[in-house]
């Protein structure tokens, strides 16, 4: 059998690195459907999964792909899918089922320009709010944004670890540029890769309750075939998993589903500061746009502009506290993203009028050149 972890140094695209990260995390099921610019993840998994004892299947559409991922997860297998905008839209209902039934899995969205068929081969970051609220009802979600092939390798492992720890679908919001660009990717030794698995039930099976929260607010999860006779439903349910369609049960369930994220923010949220200590102006960015912003900071610093960057590695849950703190001492914020102001609104909300917040945005099709960010900085300076 081939190795699941291909320790070594490679020149690899972000899509391929994503697939290798998944395998390193222990993913053994992929249900997919072809879509540009995410197809290469499926193609890599089709080659690699059977080599390591896993299963790949190309389904008839993205709705089915997402459903198989949930089914495989309940069979006890770490599972994932990857798609882009139109497919992400189709997956939304079953992502909601995954949230409601607390099913660990990873969904990668290699973003392209939208709405609709949009710009299939060109980048955008226009699905960030869809990632947050795309499925109906009130819920919490975890979404990560990779800035390089190396980072998507690690982020995919993190995404699996978070999904297993907190029992929910975790989203990786990549984009066409990160997906298709080739860069150096170092795959470490197996011993240097930390992988986590869902909490398993202990104790008597007849007393087991499917959604009884454990110490961190997350319930233990048996797999189908282990003899627990679980009932898993997308209807509002009690701790036993039984549908109870009352106001009280709805309140309890939604509270439980949101609390397991909102009470563990310090464990979940990751950001990266760059020249923030003395910064008078702060760029907020993520994914490929954070690379642009990084270059802009370097250029502007050489021209004497005191600017820093807060790179969001976790976009959802949103790092509110950090931005609120920065708002106390920073004179201006600039959000840099390939959409017309989605995360921008979140920044505005957190800054709460304490400093002006401007946007360097673009509706999609290209990266935002560093010059545009520098221009904005000079304007504001």
């Amino acid at each position: 059998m081939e190795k699941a972890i291909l320790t070594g140094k490679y020149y690899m695209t972000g899509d391929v690195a994503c697939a290798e990260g998944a395998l390193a995390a222990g993913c053994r099921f992929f249900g997919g459907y072809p879509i540009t610019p995410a197809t290469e993840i499926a193609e890599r998994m089709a080659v690699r999964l059977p080599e390591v004892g896993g299963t790949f299947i190309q389904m008839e559409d993205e709705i089915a792909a997402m459903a198989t991922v949930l089914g495989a997860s309940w069979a006890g297998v770490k599972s994932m899918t990857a798609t882009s905008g139109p497919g992400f839209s189709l997956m939304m209902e079953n992502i909601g089922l995954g949230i409601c039934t607390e099913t660990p899995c990873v969904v990668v969205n290699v973003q392209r320009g939208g709405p609709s068929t949009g710009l299939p081969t060109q980048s955008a970051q226009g699905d960030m709010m869809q990632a947050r609220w795309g499925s109906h009802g009130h819920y919490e979600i975890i979404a990560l944004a990779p800035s390089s092939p190396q980072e998507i390798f690690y982020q995919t492992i993190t995404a699996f670890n978070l999904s297993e720890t907190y029992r929910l679908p975790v989203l990786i919001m990549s984009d066409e540029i990160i997906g298709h660009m080739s860069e150096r990717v170092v795959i470490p030794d197996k011993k240097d890769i930390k992988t986590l698995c869902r909490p398993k039930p202990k104790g008597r099976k007849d007393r087991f309750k499917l959604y009884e929260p454990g110490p961190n607010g997350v319930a233990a999860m048996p797999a189908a075939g282990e003899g627990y006779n679980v009932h898993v439903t997308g209807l509002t349910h009690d701790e036993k998993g039984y549908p109870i369609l009352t106001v009280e049960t709805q309140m309890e369930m939604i509270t439980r589903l949101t609390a397991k994220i909102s009470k563990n923010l310090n464990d979940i949220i990751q950001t990266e500061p760059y020249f923030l200590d003395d910064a008078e102006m702060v760029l907020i960015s993520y994914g490929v746009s954070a690379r642009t912003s990084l270059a802009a900071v370097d250029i502007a610093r050489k021209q004497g502009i005191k600017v820093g960057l807060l790179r969001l590695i976790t976009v959802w849950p949103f790092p509110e506290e950090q931005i609120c703190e920065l708002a106390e001492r920073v004179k201006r914020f600039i959000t840099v993203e390939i959409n017309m102001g989605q995360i921008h609104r979140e920044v505005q909300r957190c800054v709460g009028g304490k400093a002006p917040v401007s946007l360097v945005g673009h509706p999609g099709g290209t990266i935002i050149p560093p010059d545009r960010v520098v221009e904005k900085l000079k304007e504001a300076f």
Partner: protein
Amino acid sequence: MADKLRAAKKQPDHPLDDLLRRDRIPHIWCPGCGIGTAFSSCLNAIKSSGLERKNVVMVSGIGCSGRAAGYVNLDSFHTTHGRAIPFATGLKLGNPDLNVIVFSGDGDLFAIGGNHLIHAARRNMDMTVICVNNLNYGMTGGQVAATTPNMAKTTTTPRGNPETPFNLPHIAYAAGATFVARWTILNTREITKSIEEALLKKGFSFIEVLSPCPINYGRRNKESSQDTLKLYQEKTIIKNGAHPSEIDIDPEKGIILGKFVDLQQPTYIEKYDKICRSLMNH
């Protein structure tokens, strides 16, 4: 005295109790509905199949029949509308030791979920699909379905249905199902036998069970539950081996029941293991 009263009140044991979540009973199905009969036939089949109970799982979609997963005392999954089959596909591929039953309705499996049904049949995915066909959308109050007879009245075809209904066994067969049968809820022994055969058979099995829906379909078409059962008694013809293309539901000509298809074909997992995994050693 109180103990005696309690003992007298205690429900007598039922032979299927161990397969039921008794704390979920009473069920939601209406008086005169046939889903319960199809469901108990399914439970009898699980029992008589002798399969190891912990490896039998039931997956349902949404609708009246979709509630079955909530009453069976097995690992059971009540999924999204139309998506029971791909969810079941994931379960099966994740753990090939599972024996997967999909129990759902005609709207769920053939309208919103029709695409998944034909593709699972095409792949010969090893699962048993039981479709309770009550000719309409019962849960939402009796709307037209892909199975509603031409000219029948429903809340969304108040002047009569202008469409032509699907012949479900024909679709399953044409798409590649290796076991296909149709019964009515009057044929409980035959349903049980067909489901048992399907559970023990490797491959995609499809069993249609015709069922009355007196509250939502019957009421608008001047057909009581008894009328429907009478129709099943008088107008059905058991014709095992009939070609699925020739069994459109037509009470005038007689409704054909029976086991129509029983083929041996390699399953998806067998082919995946042979084609996709065996090359690993070369």
